C-alpha cells in the first residue's frame, strides 16, 4: 500500500511537471535564440491569468483559455520589437536589468489596473472533481492541462524539427553568424519565438488562474520554479527542459510523501546536486556564442 501511495505521488508529480513545462520551455527558447534571460517572463504568465479572468467573466472559460495566450503573444511582438531587440548583442547584464525592471513595471501596472487584492475565477463544473484510474486519483482539470501541454509539446517539437522555421531557429541558436552570412535575417524568427514563449507562459497563467491565487506578484512567484527547471534541464536544451520539469514535479512529490516540510526545499537540493555533477544542466548543450 505504501508503494502505491508513493507511485501515486510520482504520477501526480509528472502531471505537475507538465504545468511547469509551459512556463519554463518559453524561457529556455528565448534564451537559446536571443541569448536573453527574460526576467519578465513571469509577468506574461500573470497577464495571461488576469486576461483569462476577465475573459471568463465575459465569454466563459473555454474562450478565455483560447484567446488569452494569443492576446498576450501579440503583446510579445511589441516586447520583442521595442525592447528585447535592442539587447541581443549587448552586454547580458543590460538585458537582465531591463527585463527585471520590466517585470516590476508590469507588476505595478497590474496592481494599478486590477488592484492589489486578488481576483478570482472558477473551474467549469464539467472539469471539477477527480477520476480514479486503478488506484490513482487524478484531478480532471489537471488531466485537461496535461493533454494540452502534451499537444503543445508535440507541436513545438514538430515546428522546430520538421519546418523551415525550425531549421533556421536551430541554426540560429548554434551559429547566428552563418545564418546571417546566408542572407537570412534572424529577427522575424526571434519575434516568432518570443510570441511562442510568452504565449505559453500566458496559457500557463490562464490554466492556473482557477486553482491558484491570482494576484499581482504571481509572476515573480512562478519565475523561481521556472528558473530551477531551466537550470536543471540545461539552458538551450528542449528535451533537457522537458525532462527537468517532470523530474522537479516528481522529486517534489516524493519529498512530500516522505518529509512534507521538505517539499519546497527538495527542488533546490535537486538543482544543487545536478549542478555539482553537470554544471551545464542535464542536457545543456555547448553553445558557441555563450562560451
Amino acid at each position, binding site marked *: 500500500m505504501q508503494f502505491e501511495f508513493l507511485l501515486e505521488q510520482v504520477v501526480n508529480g509528472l502531471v505537475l511537471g507538465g504545468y511547469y513545462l509551459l512556463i519554463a520551455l518559453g524561457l529556455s527558447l528565448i534564451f537559446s535564440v536571443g541569448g536573453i534571460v527574460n526576467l519578465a517572463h513571469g509577468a506574461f504568465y500573470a497577464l495571461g491569468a488576469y486576461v483569462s479572468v476577465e475573459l471568463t467573466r465575459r465569454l466563459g472559460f473555454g474562450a478565455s483559455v483560447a484567446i488569452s495566450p494569443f492576446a498576450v503573444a501579440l503583446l510579445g511582438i511589441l516586447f520583442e520589437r521595442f525592447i528585447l531587440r535592442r539587447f541581443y548583442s549587448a552586454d547580458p547584464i543590460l538585458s537582465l536589468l531591463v527585463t527585471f525592471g520590466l517585470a516590476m513595471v508590469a507588476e505595478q501596472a497590474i496592481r494599478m489596473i486590477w488592484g492589489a487584492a*486578488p481576483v478570482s475565477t*472558477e473551474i467549469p463544473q464539467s472539469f471539477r*472533481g477527480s477520476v480514479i484510474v486503478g488506484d490513482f486519483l487524478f*484531478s480532471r482539470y*489537471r488531466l485537461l492541462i496535461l493533454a494540452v501541454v502534451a499537444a503543445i509539446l508535440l507541436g513545438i517539437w514538430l515546428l522546430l524539427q520538421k519546418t523551415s522555421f525550425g531549421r533556421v531557429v536551430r541554426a540560429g541558436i548554434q551559429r547566428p553568424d552563418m545564418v546571417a552570412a546566408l542572407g537570412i535575417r534572424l529577427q522575424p524568427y526571434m519575434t516568432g519565438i518570443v510570441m511562442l514563449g510568452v504565449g505559453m507562459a500566458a496559457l500557463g497563467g490562464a490554466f492556473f488562474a482557477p486553482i491558484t491565487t*491570482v494576484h499581482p506578484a504571481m509572476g515573480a512567484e512562478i519565475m523561481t520554479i521556472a528558473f530551477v527547471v531551466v537550470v536543471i534541464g540545461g539552458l538551450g536544451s528542449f528535451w533537457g527542459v522537458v525532462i527537468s520539469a517532470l523530474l522537479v514535479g516528481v522529486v517534489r512529490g516524493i519529498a512530500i510523501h516522505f518529509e512534507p516540510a521538505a517539499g*519546497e526545499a527538495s527542488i533546490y537540493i535537486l538543482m544543487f546536486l545536478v549542478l555539482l555533477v553537470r554544471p551545464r544542466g542535464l542536457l545543456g548543450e555547448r553553445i558557441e556564442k555563450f562560451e
Partner: protein
Amino acid sequence: MIRYPRRTLLRAGAAFVGASAFGFPAIVKAQAERIRIGHLTPLTGFLGVIGSYAQLGVKLAAEEINASGGILGKRIDLLSEDSINPATAATKAQRMLEQDGAVVLLGEISSASSLTIMQVAERNKKVFFSTGARSDALRGKNCNKYAFHCDIPNTVMVNAVGTALSQQGMVKGKKFFTLTADYIFGHDLLKAAKAFFGTHEANLIGDELIATDATDFSPYLLKVRQAKPDVVCCNLAGNQVTNLVKQYAEFGLPYPLVGFNLNTGDAWAAGAGNLGGTWPTVWYHTLNNPTSQAFVAAFSKKYGKPPENHAWIDYVTLKLLAEAINTTKSTESNELIAYFEKQAQFDIGKARKAYFRSWDHQLVQEAYPFTVKPKDQMKDQWDMLVLGDAVPGAGDPLETIYPTKEQNPCEMKA
C-alpha cells in the same frame, strides 16, 4: 581650486541666512506639530494581499484623525512600509524609532515578523500594537510590556470554530487531518488545535507542515485521500488558504474542509464557488453596528470596495491609540501602558466594547464563526459569509474564550 564670483557667494550666503531666519524655523515648527507613527505590514509575499488592506485601513484612520484636528492638536505623520520578512521588519522598526522619530509602532500580520518587532520595541522602550498576528506565543511566553495584541489569538479562533463544529456533531469521535503553515503561527495554531481535539475527544490522524511559499497542494491532497479522515482542517495562512480552498474544490474530495484560520481577503480570493465549511473570523463588513457601518461606508467610499478584517483592525487600532494619547495627553510609553493596563474600554465596532487585558495585553473582544452563503444568495462578490452568533454568548464574560492565566505563560518584566 574652483573660484566663485563674490556676488554669487554673497547671494548664496544671503539665501542661507534668509532661509535660517524664515524657512527653517517654519520647518522645525511643522515637525514639532506632527506625531510620527510607524506602520509595518507585509505588502509582498504570501501575506501581502491582506497586508495591503491593513495599509488602506490605517491610512483612512490617519486621514480621519487629522481631518478632525489630529492628536493633541498635532497632525499624525504616518510612515507605512512593507515589512517583507522578520529580519527586515526588525531593521525597519529600529530605523523608524531611532532615525525617523516614530513615537509608537503598529501593524504586522506575520507572527514571525511581529515577534522581531516586539523585541525591537522592547529594546527601545516604545509601544508596539501587533494588529494582525495571531500566534498564542506572542501574548504568552514571548510577551513583553511594550507589546499589545489586537487580533484574536489562535486559541480563540480554535474555540470559536470548534464550538460551532461541536454543535454540528463534527468533533467528538471524528478523525481530523490538518494542513499547517510551517512557521511560528502555524505551529502555534496546531498546538491549540491539538489541545481542543484532546479535550473534545477528536482524533488527529495526520498533519502536514506546508512551506509558506507552496502554491501547489496536490501532493498533500493525495495524502489526505490516503488517510481517509472525517474532517480536513486548514491551519494555513494568507495565500496558502486561498490556494488550498481552490485546489480542494478542484479535486472534489468528499471530506468536509473546515479551518481554524481565515481572513476574509482569503475567502474573497478563493471565489464564491470554491469555499464551503465553517471558519472563524474576527470581524466582517456586514456586522450590524453603527461604528462598523460608519467605517465600512467611509472605506467603501474612498477605495471603492468594502474593507477586509485587517483594514478594520489597523483602522480601529490607530483610532484607539489616538483616544489613549488624547486622554493621557502624552505619547510617553509608560503613560500609555499604564492607561491601557487600567483596561480602558474601546468601541471597536462590535456589540460589546473591548479592552486590553492588563496581564498579557490581549485585546479582549468577541469573535465569530461563519459559514459560506450559497452563490445565488450573494448580493455581490464580497457578500460571501454568513456570520454565526458572536462568541462568547451575550451572557458569558468575554474572557471565557481566551486562555486563562494558568494556560498562558506570560510574565511581564517590569
